[in-house]
């Protein structure tokens, strides 16, 4: 029995001012509606243009449940095509990445397509004369996503032809991407180091929610970060602080510190932790790096760029970036109770290798399926995915520092343990779920 399809009012009722109904996490019908509406009405991250540096380079991924291929067209632009042959539906690009030359060729019947999706040729064409093929959707080739935006290398797509513009959707939040890119002396990033892929038996929004949850690290991660901290405190005085200890220990910062770090809240569900200070602020300087930055930008600007130590910037619907360590996490929805988490890392072009080395260490210590931090996070998500089925109270609570005045405020900096960004996530969820209903 359908409870939500076509009923925008019922969907909106799932999000109260400071509470969210559990169906948002556990209901398969809502998940299908998310794929149909939410992931079509919003600007969803596809990939980075360094993954398709040359003409004909392609990279296959998904937008929600849609298989897509991102490709560098012969005109130099990055295109996003639905990865389906218009003939029998075969996925045309089969590998994760590669180079297809000037055309894609379907491996089933050798239909060929230009890298903007348009039909190039078919073999043995006389069989299609006077059949009406010319006027069929197949003759149009692979479906191209019309709304694609490349923001400083980060490629986003909006599947629906109608909807908010890119700038309108992201607004001031793009400053976190700016800071990440500006950290390269030449203003350029490259995907580097490989991607960690971690399967989660939970709803994708639990991961989104967690990115600005500053009241969990000292609790959920006591066993990992707390153990590392305790062991470090036993090291003989004068022992050089290992990079791994620098990474782990700030997770144990007390509530007061997270309060002071601040949270910035933007519209449409975007926001970031670590406004004034963050868990990434006190890493050791990398030899030679500041001088390179100073030479590139001048001292004042270099200091301003490196002085921003934003912790997690969450972009609605399903990514998080860390500017200071050049990391992007993509929460790929698979079903209501299954999510693939991909953690991507970037090289700051022309900056010292040691920065990438630290980024990769962070990624494997915190985001790998073998990570002791990841283990405890996933344990919480999976317990929530099961626990939410309990009847009696069907609501997830987000009252921390709620003030009704926030409903009319925009672009605000607030206390670092505020659950405002989470509340905004679900307000954005209700909005973009129902935008085209």
């Amino acid at each position: 029995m359908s409870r939500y399809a076509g009923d925008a009012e019922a969907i909106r009722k799932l999000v109260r001012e400071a509470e969210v109904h559990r169906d948002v996490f556990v209901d398969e019908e809502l998940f299908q509606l998310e794929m149909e509406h939410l992931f079509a009405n919003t600007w969803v991250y596809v990939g980075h243009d360094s993954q398709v540096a040359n003409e004909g380079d392609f990279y296959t991924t998904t937008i929600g449940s849609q298989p897509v291929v991102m490709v560098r067209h012969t005109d130099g632009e990055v295109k996003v095509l639905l990865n389906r042959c218009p003939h029998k539906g075969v996925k045309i690009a089969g590998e994760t990445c590669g180079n297809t030359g000037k055309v894609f060729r379907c491996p089933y019947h050798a239909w060929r397509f230009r890298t903007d999706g348009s039909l190039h040729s078919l073999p043995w064409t006389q069989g299609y004369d006077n059949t009406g093929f010319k006027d069929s959707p197949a003759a149009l080739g692979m479906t191209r996503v019309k709304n694609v935006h490349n923001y400083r290398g980060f490629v986003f797509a909006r599947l629906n032809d109608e909807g908010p513009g890119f700038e309108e959707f992201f607004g001031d939040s793009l400053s976190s991407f700016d800071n990440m890119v500006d950290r390269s002396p030449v203003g350029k990033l490259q995907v580097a180091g490989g991607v960690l892929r971690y399967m989660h038996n939970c709803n994708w929004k639990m991961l989104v929610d967690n990115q600005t949850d500053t009241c969990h690290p000292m609790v959920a991660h006591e066993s990992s970060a707390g153990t590392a901290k305790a062991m470090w405190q036993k090291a003989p005085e004068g022992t050089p602080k290992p990079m791994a200890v620098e990474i782990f220990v700030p997770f144990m910062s007390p509530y007061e510190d997270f309060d002071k770090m601040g949270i910035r809240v933007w519209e449409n569900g975007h926001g970031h932790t670590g406004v004034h200070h963050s868990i990434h602020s006190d890493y050791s300087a990398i030899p030679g790096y500041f001088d390179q930055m100073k030479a590139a930008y001048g001292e004042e600007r270099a200091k301003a760029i490196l002085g921003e130590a934003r912790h997690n910037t969450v972009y609605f619907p399903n990514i998080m970036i860390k500017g200071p360590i050049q990391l992007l996490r993509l929460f790929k929805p698979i079903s209501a109770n299954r999510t693939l988490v991909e953690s991507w890392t970037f090289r700051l072009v022309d900056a010292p290798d040691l920065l990438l080395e630290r980024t990769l260490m962070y990624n494997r210590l915190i985001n790998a399926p073998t990570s002791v931090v990841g283990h405890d996070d996933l344990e919480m998500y999976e317990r929530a995915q099961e626990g939410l089925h309990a009847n009696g109270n069907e609501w997830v609570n987000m009252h921390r520092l709620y003030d009704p005045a926030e409903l009319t405020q925009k672009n605000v900096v607030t206390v670092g343990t505020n659950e405002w960004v989470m509340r905004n996530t679900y307000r954005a969820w209700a909005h973009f779920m129902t935008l085209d209903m």
Partner: protein
Amino acid sequence: MNRNDPKIDGAFPSDRELVDFVLREARMLDQQRFEDWLTLFANDGYYWMPLEWGQTDPRLVCSLMYEDKLLLSVRVERLKGERTFSQKPRSRSHHVLQMPHVESRDEAANSYVTWTAMHYVETRNDEQTLYAAWATHHLAVEDGKLRIKLKRVDLVNCDAAFGNIQLFM
């Protein structure tokens, strides 16, 4: 005192002693004798689980694990913790090793390498997951005992998406 960690008989380890060491190491893991297991590592030893097929660089290419003795000790200490939530209940492991093969021995350099195909099962609650891998042990003799300089675990599906892998392969 670490049980089953004998001194080698002669000045140099025999092939049999190298093989026995690898078998004992796996058994220690399955018996959850993690502190004993840590003592098998040289102080500058590493445990490496590559992310890429045929990976050669642990520094500028990401790995699933690339951990020195400090990080391994944090893991072992964590497993004992009262608030180690992902280990309530605890995981268990099971190794099946093919006979280890002595790949190379260089007495002058005090360097011995073994290669072992294995199946590894990790289980927790009602879930049981099978992994297939090759373990490469780089061993050296220190104070008459074999020690791990590097244990490299190459998963046959190293680039697949995994759920939690919580113990040691």
